[in-house]
């Protein structure tokens, strides 16, 4: 059992989950799998944080969910982005890029002093 390689603030987790869901409705476990795969195994979220995040975002209206069946005919709750969720994702990823740029600039700037 490996320890998670990176801890994620739950705001960032939210953004990542939103991003994953742009690929279509998914149930909880599938979202966790996708996050893992897409990040080339770097990110392994603490599974226990995922559901609170999903519920929180659903309450805020960024997601909606309903019961459905998986390919293997298992009953599961599927989550999907709402319009508001799309907008939230757009604003958060813009914010994230700004943040990443700022961090990069600081890191590079110290070299020149």
């Amino acid at each position, binding site marked *: 059992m490996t320890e998670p390689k990176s801890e994620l603030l739950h705001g960032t987790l939210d953004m990542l989950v939103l991003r994953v869901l742009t690929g279509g409705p998914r149930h909880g476990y599938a979202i966790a799998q996708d996050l893992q795969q897409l990040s080339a195994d770097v990110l392994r979220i603490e599974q226990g*944080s995922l559901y609170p995040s999903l519920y929180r975002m659903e309450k805020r209206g960024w997601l909606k969910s309903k019961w459905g069946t998986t390919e293997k005919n298992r009953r599961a709750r599927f989550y999907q982005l709402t319009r508001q969720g799309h907008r939230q994702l757009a604003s958060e990823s813009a914010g994230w890029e700004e943040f990443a740029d700022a961090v990069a600039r600081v890191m590079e700037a110290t070299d020149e002093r």
Partner: protein
Amino acid sequence: MPPWRGIRRTLGSMLFPGRAERRIDEEIRLHLEFLEEDLLAHGTPPDAATRQAQEVFGDKQRVKQRCADALALPVRTHRKGLGDMLTLDIRFAIRNLARRPGFTAIAALTLALGIGVNTVIFSLVNGVLLQDLPYEEADRVVIPSAVLLDRGGMLIGSSYPEFTEWTEQRQIFESIAAFELAPFDLTGGEEPERIRSTVVSPEYFSLWGARPLTGRTFTPDDYRDGDDQVAVLTHGFWQRRFAGDPGVVGSEILLNEAPYTVIGVVDEATVWPRGSDIWTPMFYGDPLPRFARRWDNSWLRVMARLQPGVDVEQARAVLVGIAERVAADMPAIRGSYSAEVVPLDEWIVGDQIQTALLVLMGSVGFVLLIACVNVANLLIARSAEREHEVAVRRALGAGKGDLIRQLLAEGMLLAGAGAAAGILLAVWGIRFMVASIPDDVMRLDRVGLDGTVLLFVTAVATLSAVFFALVPAYFSSRGELTRSIKETGRGPAGGRASQRARSTLVVAEVMLSLVLLVGAGLMIRSLSAATRRDPGLRTESTLTLGLRLPRARYPDAEATDRFYLDVLDRIEQIPGVESSTAFLSTPLGLSTYNLFRAHLEEGAPEPPAGPEYSAQWNTVLPGFFRTLGIAVLEGRAFTDRDNTSNEPVMIVSRNFADEMFPGESPLGKRVRSWRDENVYRTIVGVVGNVHQFGMGQAPNNIVYVPRLQAPGLSPQAIAVHTSVDPLSVLPAVRGEIWNQDPALPITNIQTLEQAAADSLGPDRFIARLLALFAGIAVVLAAGGLYGLISYSVTQQTREIGIRMALGAGTGDVLADVLRRALVLTSVGVLVGLAAAFALSRVLGSLLHDVSASDPLTYLAVALVLGGVAIAASIVPARRATKVDPVTALRYE
């Protein structure tokens, strides 16, 4: 976020707080299963997989708590919301009701009967009284009319100058039209046909907003003299006579030998009145003849549409003001006139039907009450049995609210089942009723199960449900708690309180059914009194037929008389025919022409200085009284010598003679019909009263005038008195008529016997329904009484056993039980008699010859109920006598 989703979620979490929690649990469980599967797929051994999955996932409780926090929910596993509880209640209630199928069936059926019967009558009331008329904005259409104050406010239409004044009152009337019904002979086509026209003034079609299906309706030009007259066809007539040919517009038809151009077709369903084939213009052409323009000649019928915002009161005030002004200007002829405005729907339905329907509605409400009381009684009895169960539940913490909710659920289920069955019953009942109501009694096209009726059923069922829940709830939550847990259930179950309540309810049932029985009894007596009434003529073995001789072929009195004398002569040759006669108005409600005139004695002053005496005029041939079997009480009947060369005479009915000449013989008095003919006639005979408008109404005053002395009023019907079955000579009679004139339409063929019976149709209908409801009520009340007595006998088995062991005989036990039943019944009967006395006033206008406080009826009903009570309690009473003291005491 879309508001509804939030609302749904909030509502959902309020009603079913457990649900969200269950979802969290399920998602977590699923996730763990997925994890396990993956681990297994990667080769981890099964038990290790489970454990590892748990570890990877983390602390389940903490996750659950965090999820719950995210949803802002309190997580309490055992809390149930209202929604959960109601589901439980309903399931419990279903199980409970199913465990006692007998009780449930009886309760549901009783309810179904009560609700079903109410639904049927309500649908009738709804269709006839409550529904709007099917015309555009019909609530603004009214019938203005002049009123004769000294005739008890009789409505008499309007005169021409009056109508003209009313048309100027545009502040109250948006539109106003005069109308009349007139027959026409349609000739020139294939067969001549007698059709009916509604003759209308210019605003008629615009009042109704009626648009022509083809062509156009009347314009003011059509009312001017010079061009051909025009006519508008009804859709029905157009289809029937012209096969819907659109080319009929512009074609010419001959009405009474005059050419009319057809200018359009209108759907008769959009206007009132109906029943005609065509419309023709009134006031056509030349100024009207003088007599038609007199203030005291009320020959017009008027309808009007009120201006928006004007109500009937205001319109009436304006017209009364005009009437008073005219009365002041012309006291001699208009002194006793006023005005009235009647809304169209009231005008169409009529007073008597309204009363009848309200009586029926009230009666059927009583039946429902009795049914509910019965079911409530059953429920109280059951709740007494369930005391133990209730006590245990309460000990376990169920609050009063919970118990009441449970009872409410049961009550609603019962009411729902009863309502469903009741609706089924009503569907059949409505169909049956519509089929059996005589056609002319009321218009039934809008009677059926529509939205309003279903709403009514729902309301009734809900009220019943609440009643059922509250009544037993009241008893089960009273302090019988401790006693029943300790006891083994002996003793009068339910305690004094519930026993008293059930007794009171049974007394109430008896009272209600007594009221209904009295009502039914009074109606039945009234009906039988009416049928036994003397119609004033011979009804057996007499046939009548209506004949209208077209003016075209019978232009004057001579031609008409020749026809009648010839045809009557021939008819009397038919074997089986005793005699025949011809006359203007057929008795027993069969007449289509009713003429009323006002009379003054010679020397008497004209109104308003003195009274005038109104009577219906009937012109008759000699032999009339003999053929119809009308008794000549004084003087003589008419003879051939009563013609224009001799003194003008008249024969009057007994009631007219008594009114105009009280206490003296009218023979020899000279009387004139002063508003029209104004010729003095000598009274030469007095005859018995005749029920001219049917057995359901008092006989009117009638003045008979010999046909030969009234050339303007030709006969419109004949009567044939036979020695055999009257219908058996009908073909021969028709044959003789058509021998004389093959193109003559014959209408209204009827035997007088049938007419007398038919005229009581409405009374019979109401009496039958009331009897049915009273019957149902008595059966239900008897059932309730039986249930009560039977139950108390069962509960008192031990007491009875003790008494018998102590020496009481079977007679004593029997008497005891019966006495109990009779006491209850007597109280119910006494209270019921008082209530019936008060309520029977309502029946007033429907009763003939029977007073609403007729003691015979009341006595009979009381005795009947007493007998029913004894019958209902005989069986349990006998059961009581069979109690074996030894067995009864064994269960000490």
